[in-house]
């Protein structure tokens, strides 16, 4: 199996890359209405590729072991494609109003998506880096796509510099791992660790790799770019950042930690536990003082990553399943929340302050209801979807004997409930501000769909959990 080319495993990525180039051509040669056409084309491409992913035969190892397509990759890729599509829909109207409706936008989203798909299928340190850089480079440009906006360019620059540092650390760690294990293949590294006591150099390399990955998932203490970038970047870009790349990076994190370094779990469990605790606490406490809702969402996402990492710290099949369920629910909630934020426009200008939401319950009851559902769900209040995400990871931690971690998680949720509920309070109880501009149908559709999912998930949790279970088994079940 190792020596086979099996290039058909990468058909979805290849197809998406080719469609991306076609989209670029379409944009260049169409004079009027290029942005809308390219966006629609990109959406269709994402949908098509999602179907290709679902139709693929898993598991396959391709390109001499550089690339793997298994149930885990399928699950994650479908979610990545879904989140990219959601973020694109949210951008459609916003970009036009802000005057950044360039056709490059959907193409960059698409290319970033190709990179993320490659990331979650990586089976070798080199293909890992390839996928990571392809997505990161596209994201750097996206962060700064509003070139004339000072905050957006600052965000782009910060993201680029810190991202480059993180990539450097990852690369340096990879070279150490290669140096001490003699292989870049995940299977080879795992074999080297299994063969004997893992050498210290290898473990230090693992530290560097983990640091690089922690940056990409914005876990504490590598989270510092997140609030600045989330605030500075245009809202649809932030929406995209908060879902697709995060999911891909978490997927990669899971694969790297349980795959090549699975045998060294004793060495990294502590690190992940620390990162998870720090992220949960920081996410909970730091968000309290925020007045900008995008910044608040940045801290919220840091906290959510902390919860998700609890599942990784457990390291068991249940733990991985918990992370996947958590991330799937997180994506939907977050897409919906950002849909609401995108709808926060007053007199043609974007509002981002929490106090701008005052009285939304009276001026836009539908939107206020949706945001209430998301906030309650993020706070983990049953029976909304967010509760189940937390429940599965906490359970996995308790079963793995990490109950202090679960307890800290619960305490952090208590604190974070405070700021989520504050938003609900502002919407319903504070004196009303003028109404927001009428929201475009595209945003309405995204918000309505995600609200339904979040509110009604409790009725039929089985399909998602079963799919996540299959994916988790592919990763650690052997």
């Amino acid at each position, binding site marked *: 199996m190792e020596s086979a080319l099996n290039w058909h495993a990468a058909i979805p990525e290849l197809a998406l890359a080719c469609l991306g180039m076609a989209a670029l051509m379409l944009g260049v040669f169409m004079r009027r209405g290029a942005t809308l056409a390219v966006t629609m084309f990109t959406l269709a491409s994402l949908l098509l590729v999602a179907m290709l992913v679902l139709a693929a035969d898993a598991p396959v190892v391709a390109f001499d072991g550089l690339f793997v397509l298994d149930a885990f990759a399928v699950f994650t890729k479908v979610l990545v494609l879904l989140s990219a599509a959601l973020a694109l829909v949210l951008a459609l109207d916003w970009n036009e109003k802000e005057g950044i409706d360039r056709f490059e936008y959907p193409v960059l989203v698409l290319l970033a998506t190709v990179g993320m798909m490659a990331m979650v299928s990586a089976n070798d340190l080199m293909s890992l880096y390839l996928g990571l850089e392809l997505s990161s480079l596209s994201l750097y440009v996206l962060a700064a796509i509003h070139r004339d906006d000072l905050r957006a360019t600052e965000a782009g620059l*910060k993201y680029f510099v*810190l991202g480059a*540092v*993180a990539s450097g*650390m990852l690369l340096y760690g990879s070279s*150490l791992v290669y140096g*001490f294990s*003699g292989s870049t293949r995940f299977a080879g590294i795992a074999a080297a660790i299994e063969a004997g*006591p893992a*050498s*210290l*150099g290898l*473990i*230090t390399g693992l*530290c560097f790799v983990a*640091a690089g990955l922690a940056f990409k998932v914005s876990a504490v*203490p*590598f989270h*510092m*770019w997140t*609030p*600045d970038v989330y605030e500075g970047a245009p809202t649809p870009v932030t929406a995209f950042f908060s879902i697709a790349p995060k999911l891909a990076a978490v997927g990669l994190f899971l694969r790297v930690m349980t795959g090549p370094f699975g045998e060294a779990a004793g*060495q990294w469990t502590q690190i992940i536990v620390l990162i998870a605790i720090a992220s949960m606490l*920081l996410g909970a*406490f*730091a968000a*309290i*003082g925020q007045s900008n809702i995008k910044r608040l969402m940045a801290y919220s996402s840091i906290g959510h990553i902390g919860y998700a990492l609890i599942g990784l710290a457990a390291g068991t099949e*249940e733990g991985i*399943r918990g992370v996947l369920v958590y991330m799937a629910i997180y994506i939907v909630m977050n897409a919906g929340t950002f849909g609401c934020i995108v709808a926060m426009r007053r007199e043609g200008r974007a509002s981002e302050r929490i106090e701008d939401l005052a009285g939304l319950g009276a001026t836009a009851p539908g939107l206020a209801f949706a945001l209430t559902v998301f906030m*309650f769900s993020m706070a983990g*209040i*049953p*029976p909304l979807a967010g*509760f189940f995400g937390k*429940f*599965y990871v*906490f*359970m996995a931690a*308790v*079963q793995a004997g990490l*109950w202090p971690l*679960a*307890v800290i998680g*619960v*305490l952090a*949720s*208590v*604190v974070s*409930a*405070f700021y989520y*509920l*504050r938003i609900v*309070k502002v919407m*319903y109880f504070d004196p009303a501000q003028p109404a927001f501009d009428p929201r475009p149908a595209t945003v309405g559709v995204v918000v309505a769909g995600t609200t339904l999912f979040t509110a009604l998930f*409790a009725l039929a*949790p*089985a399909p998602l*959990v*079963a799919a996540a279970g299959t994916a988790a088994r592919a990763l650690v079940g052997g």
Partner: protein
Amino acid sequence: MLIAVLAPFAAAGFAPLLVRLLGDRAGLVLAIVPAATFVWLLSRLPEATPGVLEATPWVPGLDVALDFSLDGLSLIFALLISGIGTLIVLYAGGYLKGHPMLGRFFLFLMMFMGAMQGVVLSDNVITLFVFWELTSLASYLLVGFESDRPAARRAALQALLITGSGGLALLAGLVMLAEAGGSWRISDLTGAGAWIQDDPLYRPILILVVLGCFTKSAQWPFHSWLPGAMQAPTPVSAYLHSATMVKAGVYLLARLDPALGGSPEWLWILTGIGGLTMLMGVVFALLETDLKLVLAWTTVSALGTLVFLLGPTHEPGVKAAMAFLLVHALYKGALFMAAGNVDHEAGTRDLTRLGGLMRTMPVTFAAAAVACVSMAGLPFGLGWVAKELIGAAKIALEDEFGITVIAATLTNLMLFCVAAIVATVPFTGRTSEAAAHAHEAPWPMLAGPVMLAALGLVFGMAPNLIAEPLIAAATTAVIGRKATLEIVLFKAFDWKFLLTLATFVAGAALFLLWRRSAAGWRASLNPVLDRGPDRGYDQVMRGLAALAAWQTRIWQPGLLHRYMAASFAVVTLAGAASLTRGEMRLNLDFDGGRLIEWAVFAVTAASALVAALATTRLLAVTALGMLGLGVAMIFMLFGAPDLAITQFMVETLVVVILALVLIRLPGFRLSAGGARPRWLYAGISAGTGALVTLLLLGVLAEPFDPRLSEWFGRAAVPEAFGHNIVNVILVDFRALDTLGEIIVVFAAALAALAAIGIGARTRA
């Protein structure tokens, strides 16, 4: 049972529509749902004594199912929820007549009803928790219902934060409990008590579960939200904050008593906190002037009594708790609704402004007076029965807990006084200005208080109607063996009876004293008591905000160099920490080096130093370029000319491009932090450098894997006919890679050309 739980939710969905169609009469239709549940529950009375189970699968993969069970304990609660629920729905229709958001109100109220039924009927800890949090949520929405008042908004948030946080602690406790007991089912857990109490996690489990129950049931020091919650419309106060929701904590304590109870920890925590709450609540009640707050504080006291009675885990205590639960629900429900009538009709609930309502509101007065008989524990009220049972429970404990008997007697005494206040002050005496225009409330608002008060009277005279089917059945469910109960109204004329009489006399004396000097007590005590947990809540909230601001200053100053320093510091520390876990071989053979190597090293190190210390951008960039060139020299010295050439090109380009950019930027400014950050940064850099050096020495100590270079050496001539191995690799073995690289370079050149072209065009 699933239907009994889901029916109110379904009704909640239709409530707004019904209100639109029927207006204020919607309450009559909606009341059918709890009434039907009530009747159904009564019909299940005989079956409930052994307990019945139903299960429906729900959350996959974790065996969490919608398990419901009905036994004596669930039944007594479920009957209260549906019975009082029926009356409250009727009452609310009158109380909120014509309110623009009546539909929303009924939606929340029915949702709460379903959730509360779910809590008491669930046999699965997770299902129970889900319903538990739903009740907190419904309470939040109902307390904040009149959201134009800031006090209501604060109270709603406070209630949700306290009960919601307690709920999450409860979740942690329940999950650990399920792990320790090996099942999600409460009916399995209650059988595994001995096993659970030997678990090393018993104490954390106990503390977390108790936290959940105490926050919900407003025990000290978490009680502050309950008086605040009186901002809710009165039907809500009567239903959630006296009869049902606040009792959820008591329910869970009773439910888990076989699993967790019986240990010294359980005894001390429950008896201590319960007793304290009991006493505190009734003292505060004496200091209030708002009729609803008086009732709220006595509710706090009653909840304390219930927890207090559950502490010792013995049969008389449980019996007394179950009886008192029922009594309290009946009289407090009646009193709250009566207070609501007073508020609604007279426009105020301030005791100092009320009086003489007896004449204009006779029915309300009669209901309140009868309820107060029960509350005071006078004969012929059901309160008398409860007091007898409590007395029995205390006597069973007397040897160990003398002090608790005193506390309970004091509570009784003051409760008598409060009952006297509530029954007389608003209704008798001179007709006050506020009371002058009052009218009797409409019938839906009278049905509730009258019926509850009457029930209290009927059961008080014939207590054996409920003794066996309800109280004994509930006790059986809690203690796990068959309990029987036969109530005799007058036992004997002994010292206990005399003590009871003495309590009444002392209570009456206290009431007379209160009439004379209550205002003085309030003036002197309220400033002191204001420093209680309610203030603490405010301080915690402020503290959180301050902590958040502080961490933003430390972690999030928006300065890129601070972020980089933190990242490097963490990675260096983590790497160093991993190195301390064992031994690493280092390659320390050093042959002294050639002169040229030293020279290159000197240039590289010097340029690094210059780059770090430079005060202008141009110098820094140039020094960095020099550093790169030094590295390229190293590549060249050690036989990698292709790498070296690439490095030369890249470095040169970087310097040129950077210099071009720098021309357009303002001068270089050092970081604003002054000398300290610079030293800190120097330390971090030195640490990172040391770590990397160590690792490099470690890598060199590993045996070199020569397979690849040997293979290329062997294969170069026979397979590619070339003697320069690097050339052969580039153009033969990895020809495709090279082609790809060329394409990339070409594409980059095209892009550069386009960029330059754009620049030229815009300038022109």
